[in-house]
């Protein structure tokens, strides 16, 4: 089977534009483009996860913390979908209850990053000048320390625990949001309609609020969705390393860490929760990419 075919005259999909106005503007994605099967599946997965976080009792009857009399290290079965762990707790229910922590933490992280980062970026991009330079130097510094090390540093200062982990991850996300919103602000400020807004008698703030923010928001939101997935990964990594919630709180990274020692005999302890994490992150990725394409 030839897997690479370089002989086809594969002409580009985009036709060279005819140049004049008319319908010459870049096409707007219709709703139909966005609702591909992949995107729908992603949305469903995320929806289920959110429901797990909000109403865990609806999805599982087992106690995530206290195993009771259940036997340990049972394989997955109809009774225990993900089996049981070394002290007899139902793994599935641990995962479901863990969703609330992980999602909450991710939301905190992204919230911190989005609010602080976008504010920095929008001001730096729209004002420019020395203020913009100073702000972006700060962002540069945040960027230059590798994210994991930065969050570890902050965790050391703040102490362990899931909320602190969330804040730490949020601080590392500030730089990404700042960069994006700054470049959006710069682009938008150069647009003709901003000049026209000034020409219509607008002031800096009116232009910022009425024109810059609404036009920047869709790209920023797309990034936020992507960052949720990234935050989940970072938070579970920190949890795996032991800096997040203490045992026996169910938290995805911690669950995987705890199950690690039994991986040879009880693979379900690590594999299944990890697959859940992956599924959720892939879904956020999918949704975020779709949103970004719609924003562009």
């Amino acid at each position, binding site marked *: 089977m030839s897997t690479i075919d370089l002989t086809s005259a594969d002409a580009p999909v985009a036709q060279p534009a005819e140049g004049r*106005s008319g319908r010459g503007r870049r096409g707007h994605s219709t709703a139909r483009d966005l609702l591909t099967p992949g995107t729908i599946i992603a949305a469903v997965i995320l929806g289920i996860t959110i429901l797990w976080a909000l109403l865990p009792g609806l999805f599982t009857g087992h106690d995530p913390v206290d195993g009771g009399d259940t036997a340990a290290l049972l394989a997955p079965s109809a009774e225990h979908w993900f089996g049981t762990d070394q002290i007899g707790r139902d793994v599935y229910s641990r995962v479901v209850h863990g969703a609330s922590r992980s999602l909450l933490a991710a939301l905190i992280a992204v919230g911190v990053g989005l609010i602080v980062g976008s504010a920095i970026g929008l001001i730096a991009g729209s004002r420019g000048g020395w203020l913009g330079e100073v702000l972006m130097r700060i962002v540069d510094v945040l960027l230059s320390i590798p994210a994991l090390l930065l969050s570890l540093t902050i965790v050391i200062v703040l102490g362990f625990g899931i909320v602190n982990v969330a804040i730490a991850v949020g601080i590392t996300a500030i730089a990404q949001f700042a960069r994006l919103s700054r470049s959006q602000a710069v682009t938008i400020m150069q647009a003709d309609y901003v000049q026209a807004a000034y*020409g219509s008698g607008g002031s800096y703030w009116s232009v910022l609020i009425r024109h810059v923010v609404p036009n920047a928001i869709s790209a920023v939101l797309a990034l936020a969705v992507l960052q949720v997935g990234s935050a989940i990964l970072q938070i579970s990594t920190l949890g795996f390393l032991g800096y997040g919630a203490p045992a026996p709180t169910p938290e995805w990274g911690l669950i995987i860490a705890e199950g690690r020692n039994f991986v040879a005999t009880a693979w379900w302890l690590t594999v299944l929760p990890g697959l859940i994490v992956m599924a959720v992150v892939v879904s956020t990725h999918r949704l975020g990419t779709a949103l970004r394409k719609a924003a562009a």
Partner: protein
Amino acid sequence: MSSEKNTGAEAPVQSSADGTTPATSAGATPAAGAAPASGADSTPQPKPRGVGVGTPQKYRSRIGTDYSIDYPAVFADPEGTADGQGASVAGTVLRVRDLAVSYTTRSGEPAAAIRDVDLDIRAGGITAVVGESGSGKSTTAGAVIGLLASNAQVTSGEIRLGAHGEDPELDLRSLTPAQWQRVRGARIGYIPQDPGTSLNPLKTVGANVAESLRLHTSLTSAQRRERVHQLLDRVGIDRPQMRAQQYPHELSGGMRQRALIAAAISLDPQLLIADEPTSALDVTVQKRILDLLDDLRREANTGILFITHDLAVAAERADDLVVVRGGIVEERGPAQLLLSRPESAYTRRLLADAPSMQALTGLTDGAEASTAASTSAPASDSEAATQAPLVEVRGLTQVFARVPREETQDGEPGTTSGAGAVSETGAASGTVASAEAGGTQSAIIGIEDVTFSVPAGTTLGLVGESGSGKSTIGRALAGFSAPQSGTIRVGDFQAESLTKRQLREYRRTVQLVHQNPASALDPVHTVGASIAEPLRNFRIGTKAERMELVAQAMERVALDPGLASRRPRELSGGQLQRIAIARALVIEPRLVVFDEAVSALDVTVQAQILELIQRLQEELGLTYVFISHDLAVVRQIAHSVTVLSQGHQVETGLVEQVFARPENPYTQRLLAAIPRPLDTQVLDLQALSI
């Protein structure tokens, strides 16, 4: 549509080197070019043929190349030359019949892009396909060269490429990809539209031009280099050895287009497809490029398929015209026939709407060439005499940078002697050879010492090619930049020194309309909200009153007020520009600055907007400053005109005067570069009847 800046010094065109007047070359081609057909020789020798062979005495190479050299054997065509040349008069290069192309839309349904298209191209002839955007002209070109988008295919029809020397006649629809790779570049050359993006930015110009040679020949790199220098020289690029080592971004638009032409002709193809080759160029540069194409096709007997939206250019240069609209051929035939007796209503409308056609050739169905001068001149003349001017600009200066005047970038053959001379006359001073305005001034990025005044209720046209500084003036007038020196008085305001509060008030006096309406309207807001924005900012009226004002503004620009709730992406370019104008007028300014406001519109839409603007001026007593690179449009709409060149004011005066009796050489050259279809076509007839 932008025009690329041409920074080269403008030398007066030497007519001998140009040789574009059809009369001189009409008889020259077949006979002069053919090398003595050595039919008597038993051993076939590589005969010189192709570029440069046809008229060695006419073309003087600046680097001393003798164009009667023997080409490498790969170009040899022992029997072909005599046949090719002889048969060329009768031979067809391209024959297209009943061509139909359809594409599959996203929903999976097929839609027709073009239908029932016929065309013929003779060897040595130019056939122009003219149409507005979306008419399918580029699709036709794509079908001929076999490079359509992946969701489009040719559904029916015949495309045949004529025989050429040893190469057989081909049915282009039946070629396999491998066969296509042998045909493209070698037998069909392609000249793209936008010189800015059509050269690989990471490769040198020489490498770009040599690509065809690498693909189709087995020349060594030294031989390729040599050939590239010849080609660059032939297309009129100065110092080809140096230019070949430069990168595309270091060259001006005109030079890049020439490099693209050099690449296209490098293998002496029998057919050249020129896809809007001059749309992105200034009008003087455009003229030189078109002259070049004319020369090339006569020398090498190349057939040219010329795609354009500019009817005047097509009519001036082409032998045959094909007018397309909505994917169907509206009319086709010999150019002079089409121009003098157009049959289809669409063609007639195109002729009527194209400003250059009507204003300069007086060609519409007997309709008067409408100029602002002819319709409203008498009234405004007398008024102007009695009214104080609304706008007075004195000594306006805003110099961003000075660029030492370099010798012509666009390698005008006539200015070659200037090339060496320039460098000797010294850095900053202008070329002695060029009679520029104030010949010793250096080129400026910005403007220097501009003075004019505009009587109330009239229109001043600010004309110049790209880089002339006209936009800088527009921005200064509209209060978007403070000049370095000089004064601007508009009404009671001194615009060069406004405080922030005064600036806000000033906005109620002066408004600016941008070139591209799609980018001048916030895509997030409805168009009604955009129109209402000035009202909001100045707190005029209550919400209900504002809606009423918006509706009135929309009606004034002949738009249905129901469109106020639409977003910009749902409207067409013409509608958007009307919205932009409505927004500018809603706070009742006295002066409106139009910065290339119609340049990005199709010709028919452009005509409508111009008519709207003129009507509004009469109704509301507005004063306009109309910035444009298009002389024909300015002629139509302006009462007085100021010509700018590279930051300097070159000529000012009433429109009829400047257009009829231009005094400055630059203005003369600018006017001379406007396509004059009727002149060329008439002469062609004369030549044929000799």
